[in-house]
């Protein structure tokens, strides 16, 4: 009985150590390695990958559509596409570029499906609700920025959000959006100019 308990404890400790070591190993792994492991059937690799990219990807969608319900749908749909396309992934480009290309295409499909009257809904964004405790000036500036981003044309908004949220280089943004580097730079320039003006006003 004692021997059995000892064996079980030993096995439990070994298992826990293995889990800790494996999680540490996962944290050290690059996105590309994790995606490759997931494609081979390692679900834990996806957990790590998801933890890294969940918030930026969600913000990318919610700042685009300004509607939590739509953003949730888009976000879930994008991840479903990533999961389905796991075996097609080749680490020729960074994982982030591959992932945001899928997200971008998913968003473009959404805009195409959307009717002209179903435009952005700035009032439904959670951050727009007035909070008395917040600093009025900061709140006003944030609201202006948010409204300015929402008011941007879709291409400029998409390019700007990819720049601000993901930190991708211009070439990578060009790769994601399927346009040239100069087009990306131009879009960014126009977007920045518009936002500066709206913030000053």
């Amino acid at each position: 009985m004692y021997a059995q308990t000892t064996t079980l404890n030993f096995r439990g400790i070994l298992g826990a150590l293995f889990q800790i070591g494996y999680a540490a190993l996962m944290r050290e792994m690059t996105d590309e390695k994790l995606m490759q492991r997931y494609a081979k059937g390692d679900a834990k690799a996806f957990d790590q990958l998801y933890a890294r990219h969940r918030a930026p990807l969600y913000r990318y969608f919610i700042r685009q559509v300004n509607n939590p319900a739509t953003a949730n749908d888009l976000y879930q749909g994008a991840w479903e596409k990533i999961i389905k396309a796991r075996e097609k992934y080749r680490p020729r480009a960074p994982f982030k570029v591959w992932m945001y290309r899928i997200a971008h295409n998913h968003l473009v499909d959404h805009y195409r499906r959307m009717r002209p009257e179903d435009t952005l809904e700035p009032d439904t964004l959670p951050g727009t609700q007035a909070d008395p405790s917040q600093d009025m000036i900061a709140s006003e500036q944030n609201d202006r920025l948010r409204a300015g981003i929402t008011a941007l044309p879709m291409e400029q908004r998409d390019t700007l959000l990819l720049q601000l949220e993901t930190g991708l280089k211009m070439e990578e943004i060009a790769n994601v959006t399927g346009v040239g580097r100069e087009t990306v730079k131009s879009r960014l320039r126009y977007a920045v100019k518009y936002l500066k003006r709206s913030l000053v006003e």
Partner: protein
Amino acid sequence: MSNIPNNGENDQSLRDDLDKLGEAYGQLQHEEPPELLDQAILNSAHRAVVKKPGWMQFGWLHGLTTAAVFVLALSLIFNQREQVPVYEDGIRFDDSMGLQREKAAGKRSRDIKTGELQMELKEENAKPLDNYQGTPVSAPTRDEALKAVAGDQAAEPASDVLINSYVSEGLQGKTDSADKDTTANEPAVEEIRVGETELMADAPGVEDMRKQSRPAAIAAAPATEAVAPAEEVDQIEQQVMAIMKMKASGDEAWITELALFKQKYPDYPLPDELSD
């Protein structure tokens, strides 16, 4: 924050603007996906890579097994077909052919029995009749019976049909399509038929006795109906003739036999010899 390369003054100014904008953007509320959504996505991701059960991984093995079973079943069927017995005439066994053969064999045995019976009857009846030729008792009785039968004009053709059916029993009355197919049996049947005809020609006494003992009602019946109970009539006639023989030979048991016969067939019209 910005990763835009500095390719000139324009790029530098853009980079500075983006840095400032990035700071302002960083102060915005950091929305995060709901936990339920996280869980749903993670579950979906885990389900997608869950290893299928062992038997599902070998889909090709299932196909192979099914194909093997199919081939085995087919080979068994063909093997069994090849093992079906082939008769000497080279005809493969078949259900319908088997039935025909059984019918033909049964008919042949009946024909042989009939022939043997006729021979026995001839031998057994010839002796007493020969003995009775000089006796005054049997001759008038037979003549009377013949007159009675001959008086009924309608009964004559029917009795001929019955006699023929009695002799060849089934060769004429029971001929069916199966008999036509069994050509192998035809010679034997013909031989028996010829033998019977000869026997009949040699034994006129027996025919007379039959005509005498056959009831007029049965003899007058249409030929098609008379064919069916021919065997029963023959049996009755045989019993009557046996009783007559016993009486002729002086065996006292004929009285008992006659009583039993009358009990069994009360309506059967007995010949004058026995009705007395």
